[in-house]
């Protein structure tokens, strides 16, 4: 038996198919992952993401600590209350320990890291913290619900107190603010507008029920994965891990090279790689005929012996054909071959994002 979120009984009663995910019993779907996916693209869906690990960083060195710990620079968000920043947390070799979001909480910071990497993340954060005046606290008292889709904000406002509705009205994209014990952020993992709300565990079931009453559809991890993949968003353990450079994972934009004297963990390694020119990069692949590209299939590129690999592949419900993210030799052209069940299939190479705000990009 795995860990259970505050919404476990709710998922069971709503017909969720519960599976193990990183040690947690989580809903995979409630019937059809494609219907759930489409509902998020066209209206609004909600996800229990309470398995994500929330870690608060306080203390007088909080900023300096995160500037050393993370490849992105929290100085970018310090003047904007609630502003969020996406970053990799690198090891000294330049591999990605995890990807995370950090919020400026006004004098301190809140980070959200992955559940499957929880133990190594907490150990690493604690180890680095030894040289700083900071306090690291995991917030396992909080549940988290993501409400995503073109109607997500409006429908969420309809079920919360007036103060929270007003707070939501004032949120800019990629900003989160507290209201009492709640923390409401305009962030997500679907390529749609929407909210991620952290709230006390004991409030979660009533909030979920109120959203369901407002016709926000419960969605499982399966739809979450096809939505994030269409949006070209990375999933830790697929697009990157401890042995993969952020430069090979479409995370170059999350590295703050300036100021050049900011020393962050992994900087020397990825700076050398950047100067030499990264040998691999992350691209999107599309296959407009029958068949579905899958993770771990091998990618062959003309003009090099080096092989690429599909890091995530699926059928795209929005596009009606298969899409994939692949880490490939940087010399790749407009097409490549994928070994699909023993057949070499020619596919098109595109930028690694496929759908945004309901609209196809390919």
């Amino acid at each position, binding site marked *: 038996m795995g860990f259970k979120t505050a919404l476990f009984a709710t998922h069971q009663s709503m017909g969720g198919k519960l599976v193990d995910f990183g040690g947690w019993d989580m809903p995979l*779907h409630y019937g*059809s*992952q*494609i219907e759930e996916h489409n509902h998020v693209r066209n209206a609004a869906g909600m996800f229990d993401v309470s398995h994500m690990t929330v870690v608060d960083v306080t203390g007088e060195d909080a900023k300096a600590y995160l500037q050393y710990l993370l490849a992105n620079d929290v100085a970018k968000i310090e003047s904007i209350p609630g502003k969020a920043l996406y970053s990799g947390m690198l090891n000294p070799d330049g591999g990605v320990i995890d990807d995370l979001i950090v919020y400026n909480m006004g004098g301190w910071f809140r980070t959200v890291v992955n559940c499957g990497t929880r133990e190594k993340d907490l150990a690493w954060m604690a180890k680095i913290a030894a040289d700083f005046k900071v306090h690291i606290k995991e917030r396992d008292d909080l549940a988290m619900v993501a409400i995503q889709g073109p109607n997500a904000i409006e429908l969420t406002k309809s079920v919360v107190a007036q103060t929270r509705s007003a707070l939501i009205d004032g949120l800019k994209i990629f900003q989160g603010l507290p209201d009492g014990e709640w923390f409401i952020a305009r962030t997500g993992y679907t390529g749609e507008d929407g909210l991620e709300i952290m709230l006390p565990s004991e409030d979660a079931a009533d909030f979920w029920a109120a959203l369901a009453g407002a016709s926000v559809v419960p969605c499982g991890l399966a739809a979450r994965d096809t939505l994030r993949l269409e949006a070209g968003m990375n999933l830790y353990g697929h697009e990157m891990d401890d042995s993969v450079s952020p430069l090979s994972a479409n995370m170059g934009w999350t590295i703050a090279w300036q100021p050049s004297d900011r020393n962050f963990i992994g900087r020397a390694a990825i700076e050398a790689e950047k100067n030499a020119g990264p040998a691999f990069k992350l691209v999107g692949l599309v296959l407009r005929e029958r*068949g*579905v590209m*899958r993770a771990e299939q091998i990618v062959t590129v003309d003009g090099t012996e080096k092989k690429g690999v599909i890091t995530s592949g699926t059928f795209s419900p929005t596009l009606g054909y298969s899409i994939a993210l692949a880490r490939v030799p940087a010399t790749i052209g407009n097409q490549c071959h994928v070994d699909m069940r023993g057949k070499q299939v020619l596919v098109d190479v595109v930028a690694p994002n496929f759908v945004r705000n309901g609209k196809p990009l390919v």
Partner: protein
Amino acid sequence: MSDIRKELKYLSSHEWARVEEDGTVTIGITDHAQEALGDVVFVETPEVGSRVSIGEEAGVVESVKAASDIYSLVSGEVIAVNEALADAPETVNSSPYDDGWFFRIQPDDLSELEEALDAVDYRELIESEE
């Protein structure tokens, strides 16, 4: 609980076969299989007029999650395929034993089906997997 039909024969790889009144054999995948695969998005059936053999791959079913080979329970000639699955593969999820059939065979030797699992054996198999 998966729907398992008494009158059908089964393979451990989760295909079913039904002997029609005219002696032909219809092949599809079980309710348990469609449930495990999740939303089906493509079905590749053999061509009408081609031959299929026991133990050889006769088609492929792909869901959002996974691809799976399809095997026939009898050898013979393919006399019909379910063309509707090309446009509506989700029929495999909603009606695995009826509208979601895959292909139909004129069998060489109907007694080959005696090697297949009956409903009781098949239920035991999937309960042991769960």
